[in-house]
């Protein structure tokens, strides 16, 4: 596996982590009812989506780099 594929895999795992963090924030919101947790959850889900978009862009852009 080269750096290109390792990077793509790392970004996918980061997206999964962002989803997990979003769920954790929602759980915290349920327990403590702070608006900050809700905002953080939304930001985490948005980041996760952004990372997946970046990943597909990166793979397309670096197709010729092996």
């Amino acid at each position, binding site marked *: 596996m*080269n*750096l*290109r594929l*390792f*990077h793509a895999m*790392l*970004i996918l*795992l*980061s997206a999964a*982590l962002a989803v*997990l*963090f979003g769920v*954790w924030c929602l759980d*915290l919101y349920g327990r403590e009812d702070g608006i900050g947790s809700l905002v953080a959850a939304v930001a985490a889900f948005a980041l996760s989506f952004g*990372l997946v978009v*970046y990943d597909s862009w*990166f793979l397309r852009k*670096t197709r010729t*780099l092996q």
Partner: protein
Amino acid sequence: MEIPYTVEVRRDTGLTNGRIGIWLFLASEVMLFGALFASYILIRTGAVSWPRGDTILDVPLATFNTLVLISSSVTMVMAWASLMRHRFGTFRIYMGLTILFGFVFLTVKYFEYSHHLHIGEVPSTNNFLAIYYTLTGLHMLHVAGGMAVNAYLWGPGAKLWQTNPQWFTNRVEHSGLFWHFVDLVWIFLFPTLYLL
């Protein structure tokens, strides 16, 4: 005497020696961190009670550090991609940013450690903190090691670009693989210690 298979691939493995070397090294690193993660699971499942990480540790600070490390993996791969496209100036910028992100990560960790030590939360306080200091301390050493290699490639090591650009590009890729591994470890460490 010239070192063989730094640029051309070996016929038997289909890889350069450098790439085999870095993957063997990373395999040994997986065993090291894997053993520590396994120890963590055993100690946690065997404990009568276990604290929630977010009640002891600073989650917002660690979240910031996670974003810093993910950003550093982007700049690292861009540094390598710049060399593949023969843009040495762009490589210098991206590699410099990668080193800077590493420095930011370590600085934040320094403040996090200082806070815990200041209020008397040391490794001997409880098992959770012992594991926290062991795993994050070892990870910090890896970040520092990766920064040292990247700084060498950014500075004096970059002379190789003039004489053998492909070999230099391969070196940057190997350093990038290590840096990505260090990021990968953090992606597992963060939820394990701070969230779960």
